[in-house]
Every structure is written in C-alpha cells, then in structure tokens.
C-alpha cells in the first residue's frame, strides 16, 4: 500500500475516458461501481464541456454482486449502442470491476454488435492515467486503421497530428497553433487524433506521409505501431519554446521533403526580443525548479535556461517511464533529477534547492504558496483556471509568447526588487510582501463608528462568518445599527441586519 494525499495521475480508465471524450462517434462502456461517475465532472466542470462524456457506466452496487454483474454489463452495452448509435465502442473495467473479473471484452463480443468493439485491458493496480490514454489510443488505432493504401505521387505532403486529448493541458490551443504552422509550411493535415476524430477518421490514418507526435505521453505507442505497420516516420521534437519550435520546423520539413527556410525566415516570436530587452536583465540567473510530466518538464527546462537565462536548480517528473531522459537532462545542468509521485518528496526537493521560481503542476502551485515562492503552472494535473477562455497555447511561436508572460508574471518586478534591497525598514514595502502587482496583503481592520459597540457574543458570531464575506457582514450590520440608532450590536441585531439585507 502507498499512502497518498495527492496523486499526480488518476487511474488508467480516466486516460481511456480522456480519449473517448476527445473523439466523436465513439462510446465507452465502463464496468464500474456506483460512484465512479465522479469522473464526468472532470470534463463537465474542469474542462467546462457542454456535453456529457460518451461513457456509460454499469454502476453496480453491492446487491448486484450476489447476482449477475456480467448480465448488467451486457444490458448496459446493449442500451448504450441503441441509445447513442456510435461508430465504434470501447469496453473495459475500472479498478473494482477488475477484481470481479467479468471480462467486458468477451461479454461485448457475445453481443455481436454491428460495429467494431475494442476491449481494453487496463491494469488499475499497476498503471496510471497517461498509460491508460496511450494504451487506449494505441488499441483504437490498431483496431480501426485500414491496411495502407498506396500514396499517389505528386500530391502535397501530408501528416497526422497525434496526441491531443480531452482534459489535456492546453491541447486545444497547441493544436490550433501547430495546425496553422503546418498549413503555412504547405503540409496538409490528414487526421488529427484523438481530439476531434471519429472512428472513421482513424481508418484513414495510413494515408498520411508521416506523423506529428505532440504528446508522447498519449501518442507514442500508436505512433510506433504506425511506423511499423504503415512505414510512417514520426516527429521527435516537441515544439515548446522558440528553439524547439525552429527545430521542429526543420524536422517536419525534412520528413515532408520541403525547404524550411521560408517559414523560418518569416516567423518569429516576441518572446525573443522581450527576453533580450534590458528590463529582463534582472531575470538572469534566477534559480528555477521545474517539475511536471516528462514532456513539459524537459521543454520548460530548456526554455528557462536557453530563452530566459534562468539557472536550473531542480528538474523532475512523476513519469517514471521517462526517468532516464530526465536524469540525463538534469546531469547536463549539474543537478540530480527528482523522479517521484510523492508530492512530499517533491516539496522536500524544492526546499533543498531553494528556488526563486517554481514551474510545476497544480500541486507545486500549492507547495509554492506554502513556502512563499513565486510559481507558474507548466503541466497537468491542473485545475479549472488552467483551461482558460483566452487563446493560450504552450507550443509554437505564440506559445513562446505565452510562456514568457506566464513565467515572468509571478516574479517581483525589477525596480521593486531593487528598492527592497536598499530600504529594508519600509513599513508598507516589506520583503515578505507579495509582488505589488499581485494584489495586496492582509487588509487593515476597519475602524468602528464612535457610537457603536459590539457585544463579545456578537463579535464571536461574526467571526464564524467566512472571511471573504465577513467584512461585508460587519459593514452591513453597523450600517443597519447606525440607521436605527442601535448603540450596541447584539446577536439579535446581527441577525436582524442579515435578514434585512439578506443577499
């Protein structure tokens, strides 16, 4: 057993859901106990989707265990087909259903549905979310991809874009950015998958000349299979940061047999000039700790050092699969990589490294808050604020602009930093204070009108009101009392005022 308060990844069936929800015309029948439907709200709330995920859960209960849970699964699959009419279906088990061993794959085959039904084997007690997404996508590609068709000579080079899913960190905008870049290079996008693809689209994957792998965490196994089965090479460079984007362009151009020079000459990012301008001088050598999934952590380490001039004092990931790559990258900076799924170990590494900036996940954001260190988010897991309304890719030239703004924003601005160093006794302007552009510190206690007093009991009651509305409650009550010439605010007056304003 492993003691966990926070997990960087969910169980593997969440990864399968991310693939199913990303696609159209695919339905997922999941053998799972009542309660596992909590996963829906990752998509409806955190990603703010306006439709239910295409997932039917059997939601068995204890009383079903004595009976025929297999029959329950079969009727759920039958009903899902009838109601949703998908082009294809994936079936599998969650961690509890794995224990009762009903074999969803065999049961679904027995139904003899007139569509492809792809069984998923996702070992919940060994593997995790990203693995589940990658395995699901691989099984779908393998199960649906038609035999390679001959590619007619003389047409424009084309590629597939592989990897973006539902609930992916900035996948929506990365996709737009890279699709636009490929179009400007004169490369046609054959299929983008899983995000936005149908099972019918997956049958056409073999028609492209090569594959662009944006997120190895979800697409590497599928891309490796396509390389074997359809002789499609795949890109290795992840276009996060200015230099990586340029390398990506060169790599894609080589695969497509075109000249990258026109695009490289025409395109650039403001981030390069922003980083060279003199007000970025003070960023030089700022100590940064980087943690996240392997792809984003490696990319961030490179951008932080090469493109912003920071010093890397920590690098790590919760993805053990890419541990070696991370260790090599860390070694190049003379540090030891932190490979761990235990956020306390990550916190300890952060404290030991004493960075001035943390680039990490939602969890590091909170660690940073506790330690009083500026922080920006570069990788999943993330919360609702990192599925923004505005266009905010991480990849490509615009992505580099977003990275510059996002990472510099939490730092104290240069002049403020200087003045704090010079005048340490200023009563408002202390070193512990947050950067002044990030909002104020504790608000001062309001002074009471001279005619008013609070009874101790009423004051205590006021203290029970949540802090973010307490100030308003105090002000309303005092206004109410003053208007009625009540000198002493009692409990009664507090609640009379509450009823009076009542909003």
């Amino acid at each position, binding site marked *: 057993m492993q003691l966990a308060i926070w997990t960087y990844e969910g169980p593997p069936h969440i990864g399968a859901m991310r693939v199913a929800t990303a696609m159209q015309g695919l339905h997922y029948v999941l053998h799972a106990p009542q309660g596992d439907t909590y996963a829906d709200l990752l998509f409806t709330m955190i990603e703010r989707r306006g*439709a239910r995920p295409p997932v039917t859960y059997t939601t068995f209960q204890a009383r079903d265990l004595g009976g025929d849970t297999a029959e329950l699964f079969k009727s759920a699959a039958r009903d899902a087909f009838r109601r949703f009419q998908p082009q294809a279906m994936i079936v599998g088990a969650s961690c509890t259903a794995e224990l009762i061993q009903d074999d969803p794959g065999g049961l679904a085959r027995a139904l003899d549905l007139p569509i492809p039904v792809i069984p998923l084997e996702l070992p919940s007690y060994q593997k995790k979310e990203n693995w589940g997404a990658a395995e699901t996508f691989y099984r779908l590609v393998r199960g649906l991809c038609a035999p390679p068709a001959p590619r007619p000579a003389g047409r424009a080079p084309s590629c597939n874009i592989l990897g973006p899913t539902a609930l992916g960190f900035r996948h929506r905008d990365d996709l737009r950015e890279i699709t636009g870049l490929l179009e400007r290079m004169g490369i046609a996008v054959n299929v983008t998958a899983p995000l936005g693809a149908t099972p019918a689209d997956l049958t056409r994957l073999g028609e492209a000349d090569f594959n662009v792998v944006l997120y190895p965490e979800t697409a590497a196994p599928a891309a490796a299979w396509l390389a074997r089965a359809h002789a499609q090479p795949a890109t290795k460079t992840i276009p996060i940061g200015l230099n990586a984007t340029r390398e990506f362009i060169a790599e894609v151009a080589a695969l497509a047999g075109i000249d990258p020079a026109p695009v490289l000459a025409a395109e650039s990012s403001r981030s390069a000039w922003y980083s060279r301008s003199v007000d970025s001088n003070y960023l030089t050598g700022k100590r940064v700790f980087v943690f996240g999934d392997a792809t984003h952590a490696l990319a961030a380490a490179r951008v932080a050092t090469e493109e912003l001039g920071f010093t890397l004092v920590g690098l790590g990931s919760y993805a053990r699969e890419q541990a070696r790559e991370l260790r090599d990258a860390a070694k190049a900076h003379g540090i030891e990589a932190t490979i761990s799924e235990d956020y306390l170990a990550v916190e300890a590494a952060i404290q030991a490294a004493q960075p001035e900036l943390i680039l990490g996940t939602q969890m590091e954001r909170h660690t940073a808050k506790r330690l009083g260190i500026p922080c920006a988010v570069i990788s999943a897991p993330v919360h609702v604020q990192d599925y923004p309304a505005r266009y905010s890719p991480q990849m490509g030239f615009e992505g580099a602009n977003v990275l510059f703004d996002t990472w510099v924003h939490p730092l104290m601005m240069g002049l403020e930093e200087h003045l704090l160093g010079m005048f340490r006794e200023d009563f408002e302007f202390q070193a512990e204070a947050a950067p002044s552009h990030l909002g104020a510190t504790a608000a001062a206690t309001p002074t009471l009108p001279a005619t008013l007093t609070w009874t101790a009991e009423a004051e205590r009651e006021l203290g029970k009101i949540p802090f973010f509305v307490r100030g308003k409650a105090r002000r309303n009550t005092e206004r109410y009392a003053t208007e009625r010439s009540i000198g002493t605010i009692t409990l009664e007056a507090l609640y009379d005022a509450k009823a009076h304003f009542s*909003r």
Partner: protein
Amino acid sequence: MSAAALARAPAPGCTDAPVLRERGQREVFCGLTGIIWLHRKIQDAFFLVVGSRTCAHLMQSAAGVMIFAEPRFATAIMEERDLAGMTDANEELDRVVAQLLARRPDIRLLFLVGSCPSEVIKLDLSRAAQRLNATHAPGVRVLNYSGSGIETTFTQGEDACLAALVPEMRADPAPGLLVVGALAEVVEDQMRRQFEALDIGPVAFLPPRRAADLPGIGRGTRFLLAQPFLAETARLLEDRGARRLAAPFPLGAEGTTAWLRAAAEAWGVPAARFREVTAAGEQRARTAIARHRALLAGRRISFFPDSQLEIPLARFLARELDMRPVEIGTPYLHRAHLAEELALLPAGAMLSEGRDVDCQLDRCRAARPDLVVCGLGLANPLEAEGFTTKWSIELVFTPIQGYDQAGDLAGLFARPLDRRTRLMV
C-alpha cells in the same frame, strides 16, 4: 404500487403518492465524499481510505483546492502486490497507519474507511481497527466504516461514519437532547441558543467538534435528526435506548419551527412560551425568504437524485416560495424519517427513487422545468441544452438549516434564475 392505490384520489400531501422506482445507470457520488465535510467538522479526526487510485483521484477531484490545506484525509492505495497476496494487507495497513500517525501526532480519532475494492476483496477493516486500537491506545482511537459506492450514495457516507461513532458513546440514562447530523458551526450555535431559550437540555450534537466530546446516550435521550440521510445512525441510537422525535427537517421558516416544536413538546414547553421564543426568528426567516419569492413563485423545478435532501427542499420551495415541483428524485426514500415531510409536500409532484440517468434526462427534456437541481456531471450539459440548473452538491456544503439561513437557502435557488436574466451574451 397496487392498481387500487393508484386509482385512489390523491390525498393532500404526498404520504400515499406512488413512487417511481428505477434501476439503471446512477450518476451519483459514493459515500467517500462525506469525508470532504466530515474531516472539517471533527477537528481531531483523520480519515484513511483503504482503496485504489480511483478513490484517491475521486477525493482530490471532489475536494478541489482543499486538498492542499494539509487535509485530514488520505488514501492507502492498494497495489498489485497487495492483491496478489505478496504482501500481507494487514501488515501493510499497520505500516501505513504508523507512518501517518508519526506525521500527524495531533490525531485522536482515526477512521479506516472501506471502499469498493477493499469491500470486494473482503479486507476486514473492523478487525484491523481492533488490532490497531491495541497498538495505538490510549492516544488514538481507531474506528472503521464503509464509504464504498457499492454500499453508499454520497451523504450515506456520513450516516455510515456517525453509525460507527454510536457504539463509542458512553452510557448515560439521564434526559437530554441529541441533535444528529453534521451542521455548520454557526447553525449549531444558533440551535443551541434556541434550545437554551426554551429550557430544553442538556443539548449535545453528533458528530461532535472534537472526538473527546462524544456525547453520552441512554434511555433518557431524545434525538432530532438534522439531516434526512441518517437511517443507520438513527437505528443504532434507538438500539441504545434513545427515542427519535418525529419532525420535518429544519429547512425554511416552517420546517425550522416544526423541528424545534418537536423538541419543545417532548420537554413540555408551554405553547405560548414556544411562540415567544421562536416568533422573532421565524419572522426574520419569512422576511428574508420573501425577497426571493418574486423570482421563484410559480416556477417549475425538478430534482435529480443526489443527497436525500431533495424531498425536504422541495417541500420548502413549494410551501414557502410557491415553486412547483415536477419530479423529485431521491437516491433513497426513508418513509419513516420523511413521513412529516411527505405529509407537507403538495400533491402532484412525481416522486422517484433510485435512477436510470438517461431515462430521467428524457423525462426532464419532455417536462422542460424552469430549474433543474442536479450534480456537476449533468449541470453544464443541461445548461448547454438551454436549461437553468442549480448544482446540488452546494446544498450539502452550505449552511442552509435554521431560521437565519432560510433566506440564503432560497437565494441559492434564485441565483441561477437571476443570472439568466442578467446575462446578455
């Protein structure tokens, strides 16, 4: 439901109303989610879920941002080795508990919380708790209950947790009032003052704020349920000699008055005295509720099953705000505990127990209510279809009971409709 019963003219109230019982896909939380509020309520308790990565993921998804405030809950994630019998699950559990207690020496009460995986493999957490008690006594008391989805729905997790506390209560035959169900502290204090003014007492609350303050129980105990989802807890309290005071639940002016009156009658408080003590609060509640009536009166409302609060809420909204319940879905309907509620509920609404989410969505689309009360997995999809929704989980996390929260409670339902009228995008 017999044909004869269906043919009977509807009596006032819903006491004899037919209940639609459905089996199918249930879009609900499991009982583990109860930990999210219980761990804030009992300040020296820690909740250790024995489960899978799914359980840990659920807890952090549901607890949102709270997970970082060093919460008093965690998951002992079972791994392949535990299932393959390569490690002894009990030894592993002992190790994890020792690790936990070393990190959090302030813990006085430790709940081992069962989950679907631990229940399916029949990991005996009650014996584990006994064994751990021997090791960690007297500093820490170890109890267990199950919050698994296969056995519990959402708020039933609280029922299971409180039921585990009942055997721990010391025997005390002296008369006293026990209020059962986790309430916001501010609500608890308001109620305490009301009972004091009525000379009802001594009053104790279950769960207590600290493990050491667990009240006594015996033949003199009369208890009021503050929440409608406490079937098992009530049964165990009755087994120990306590008697339940039948009452509707303290939601709204009417509900709160009737709830307080049940205790007042048991304590023989004269009617005039009762009115004197409660009149001001009731009036405040009515004043605060009235502000929301214009927006809510005449509106049709449907409830998707979630917390068992649906029937008391529908009663409050129908009687005090003139809303029209279309369908009231509840995950479980406890006829005895809800008898007073059902009698007050206006006839005409359809009651449903259990669920088949797709069928219920079909009914909802056909009925087109003005407001749909539902969980977060359905709220945005329904909004995208043009429905106005009120997400139901908030009703468990917000102080809504008692006179001085009645206006806030009405406001929770008015806000989505108010927002609809403001937005011009």
